């Protein structure tokens, strides 16, 4: 290959402008990245902050190093791919090792900060009114008799009692506790500095308001103490909960007895916390253990896994068979081939969601046209009772495959048409001279040659259907439900729908950790299929060459 001379930047008149543009864009990106890094780091979202800095660094290196010119062209795509595809995959792995979810939404530091924000409000005092000209002041009288004076926008000031009486004058303010003054104090309402005001209630007798944190955090002891009630909560850094110290042993015993139990119920009983949530910690393989060991999860898991494989396999088989059949029919000299083809692509040209939902209507148990026009007559003819498409597990699955056949065959029809046209006709000639009949020709000539080019697509279609989330979601949201299963698992749920339900499903709250675990398991299955595909396609290519 000829070595291409790198055109010197200075030669062309536009290069100064491009140079400025490039540096300008880089600076803009860097500024944005730094801003995000600073803000995200402040939030404690270190993973994303670091990822953004690394990606930005990479983009900078690529665009500044003189010998990486080819990569400059790729850098925008690469940056997007890293941020929106690669990082999410890595982050998914990380989340699968944590207890992230509605029950553990924040890091420990964030959670403590939130809890310390929780303040005791509306502490009541007796009070007396003071006046200086038109300005008002308030003397707060605590239960123990100590005094504090608040006026205008000044901070509260401690005042000593003289002879057991309220002072007659403070900072020029004169005691005037008449009813009229008190009313005026109530009318003004707020006193003290703007960031920490005290409020006088409409209730004339008492009032005022002071804010103190309800909890005190003790770093060394790893405990939170409720100032009002004296309750102590101990942090469990392994599982991310604050547990009442007096019941901590009981809690540990419960955990030990059943490490995979959902702790929420027990924690609710023992923590009685204003926030009612734990914090995010790395829990190691606990999600994986829960996923594979808990009966409520494992039962449906096996069934869902088997169905996912069956669904993907049957979908590919059906769509490929029908698509190939039509491709063969269209290849023969049939009048109106072009019109047939155009009409037969229509299912492929419709938005999948709309198509599936339309079928959902047509298969409806009571009023669906498919049920009324086809299922009922068959029932009448055979004298049997065909169960409904949405209540019966088997029928739901049959319906799903039917709809997917409708959606998917045009793709294989198109692909097979292309591939068939690519098979040289002299091969058939030779075969028929040798006396091979149609079936022999098809089986030992057409199919192997077709599979060389279409084979990888079959596997791609398998992985696609393995994760065909929208199909199931739009058809019946995974129903009918499997009895006794957690997270509303249903008979038509694919693994990906199951993961989705765990993450975003209503009911028990989101559990991102567990959902990511399911995603990781799917990742691994897909990866295995990919390796398998590489082997498989290589085999096919070899057969193709031998033919």
């Amino acid at each position, binding site marked *: 290959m000829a070595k291409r001379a790198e055109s010197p930047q200075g030669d062309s008149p536009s290069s100064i402008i491009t140079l400025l543009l490039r540096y300008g864009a880089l600076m803009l990106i860097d500024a944005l990245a730094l801003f995000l890094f600073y803000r995200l780091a402040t939030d404690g979202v270190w993973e994303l902050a670091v990822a953004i800095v690394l990606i930005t660094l990479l983009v900078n290196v690529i665009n500044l190093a003189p010998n990486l010119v080819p990569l400059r062209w790729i850098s925008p795509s690469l940056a997007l791919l890293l941020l929106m595809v690669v990082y999410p995959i890595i*982050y998914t792995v990380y989340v699968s090792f944590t207890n992230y979810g509605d029950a553990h939404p924040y890091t420990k530091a964030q959670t403590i900060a939130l809890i310390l924000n929780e303040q005791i409000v509306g502490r009541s005092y007796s009070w007396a009114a003071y006046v200086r000209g038109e300005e008002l002041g308030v003397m707060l009288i605590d239960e123990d008799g100590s005094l504090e004076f608040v006026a205008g926008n000044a901070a509260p000031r401690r005042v000593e009692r003289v002879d057991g009486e309220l002072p007659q004058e403070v900072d020029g303010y004169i005691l005037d506790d008449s009813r009229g003054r008190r009313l005026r104090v109530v009318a003004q309402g707020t006193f003290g500095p703007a960031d920490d005001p005290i409020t006088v209630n409409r209730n004339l007798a008492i009032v005022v308001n002071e804010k103190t944190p309800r909890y005190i955090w003790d770093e060394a002891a790893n405990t939170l103490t409720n100032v009002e009630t004296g309750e102590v909560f101990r942090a469990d850094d392994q599982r991310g909960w604050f547990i009442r110290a007096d019941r901590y042993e009981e809690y540990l015993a419960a955990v030990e007895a059943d490490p995979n139990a959902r702790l929420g119920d027990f924690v609710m009983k023992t923590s009685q916390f204003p926030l009612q949530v734990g914090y995010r910690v790395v829990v190691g393989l606990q999600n994986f253990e829960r996923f594979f060991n808990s009966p409520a999860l494992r039962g449906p898991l096996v069934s869902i896994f088997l169905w996912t494989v069956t669904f993907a396999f049957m979908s590919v088989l059906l769509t490929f068979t029908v698509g190939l059949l039509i491709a063969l029919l269209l290849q023969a000299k049939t009048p109106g081939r072009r019109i047939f083809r155009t009409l037969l692509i229509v299912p492929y040209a419709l938005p999948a*969601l709309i198509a599936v939902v339309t079928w959902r209507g047509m298969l409806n148990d009571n009023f669906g046209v498919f049920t009324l026009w086809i299922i009922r007559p068959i029932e009448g003819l055979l004298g049997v009772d065909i169960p409904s498409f949405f209540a019966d597990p088997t029928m739901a699955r049959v319906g799903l495959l039917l709809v997917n056949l409708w959606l998917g065959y045009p793709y294989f029809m198109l692909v097979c048409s292309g591939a068939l046209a690519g098979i040289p006709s002299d091969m058939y000639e030779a075969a028929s001279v040798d006396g091979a009949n149609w079936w022999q020709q098809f089986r030992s000539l057409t199919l192997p040659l077709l599979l060389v080019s279409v084979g990888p697509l079959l596997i791609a279609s398998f992985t696609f259907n393995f994760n065909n989330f929208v199909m199931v979601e739009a058809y019946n949201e995974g129903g009918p439900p499997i009895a006794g299963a957690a997270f509303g698992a249903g008979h038509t749920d694919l693994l990906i729908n199951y993961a989705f339900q765990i993450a975003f499903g209503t009911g028990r709250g989101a559990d991102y950790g567990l959902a990511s675990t399911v995603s990781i398991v799917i990742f691994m299955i*897909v990866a295995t299929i990919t390796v398998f595909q590489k082997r498989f396609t290589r085999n096919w290519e070899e057969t193709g060459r031998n033919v």
Partner: protein
Amino acid sequence: MSSAGVSLKAGIDAKSKKRIELGYRGQQRIWMIVRMAILTAMVIFALFPVVWIVSASFNPKQSMVSQTLIPQGVENAEQLLRNYNTLLNTPRYPFWRWVANSVFIAAVTSFGTVMLCALSAYSFSRFRFWGRSNLLVFLLLVQVFPNILAVVAIYLILQQIGTHIPFIGLNTAGGLILVYLGGAMGVNIWLMKGFFDTVPRDIDESALVDGANHWQTYWLLIFPLVRPILVVVGILAFVGTFNEFALARVILRDNESWTLMVGLYTNFVSNNFGQNWGIYAAGSVLGSLPTLIIYLLLQDQIVGGLTQGAVKG
């Protein structure tokens, strides 16, 4: 049987058929009729749902129970178009807003995909550099994992970024576009690179000799030459984004920011499907038209791009 099979088995030289026994013509005709019958049956299977949804959209009674193939009780245009009227003129259903969101998101995604992928494809096609083949394989490998699998992570990332840069956060078109763009890179770069490879390199060489730099060569010479594949990728990206549902539903949260697919599904399918059947049908008909027209008009180009990508990818 064998001769019939041969005729079914298409594309075969006519000569080999001609020397077959008498009655061949008759048999051939029967097989043709069988073929036609099968194809017609398939067409009915393929088109019936479309006919049915169109009929539902014109049924003045809206509900699924009352639907007949030919809408009953239609006496004037108002009744015929009642579902469309309800859909378009009910403030609760910001239909045009959904359409505008969908079109905006799909257009920006499609434009961005074409521009960014073309840049990358040019580099992969024209330069030889360290790590090139590894990068290409990496693009393919990443593509094996659909981004719906990492949806939890994507959701959290947008949430985290969105607190500081609101227009690319959750519930925004910007955030969704970023996600789509990231997901669109792999396959499309491959598809385009395949096409770029078919443009003779002599064109670049001569331009470079004449003193043009790479950018000028790319922008003024190559870019116009590869327009067909850019159009195909752009259209496929537009249609794919316009019809996308899963990610859009997770990321977009309220009625005003929904795309057409999410809006239709959440308003008419998630609750009272049977009662909303007619309105849903009207929405589907309007919502399917853009894609359908694009596909049917450009089917040759799209099929070309599809099979090319398929064989290559």
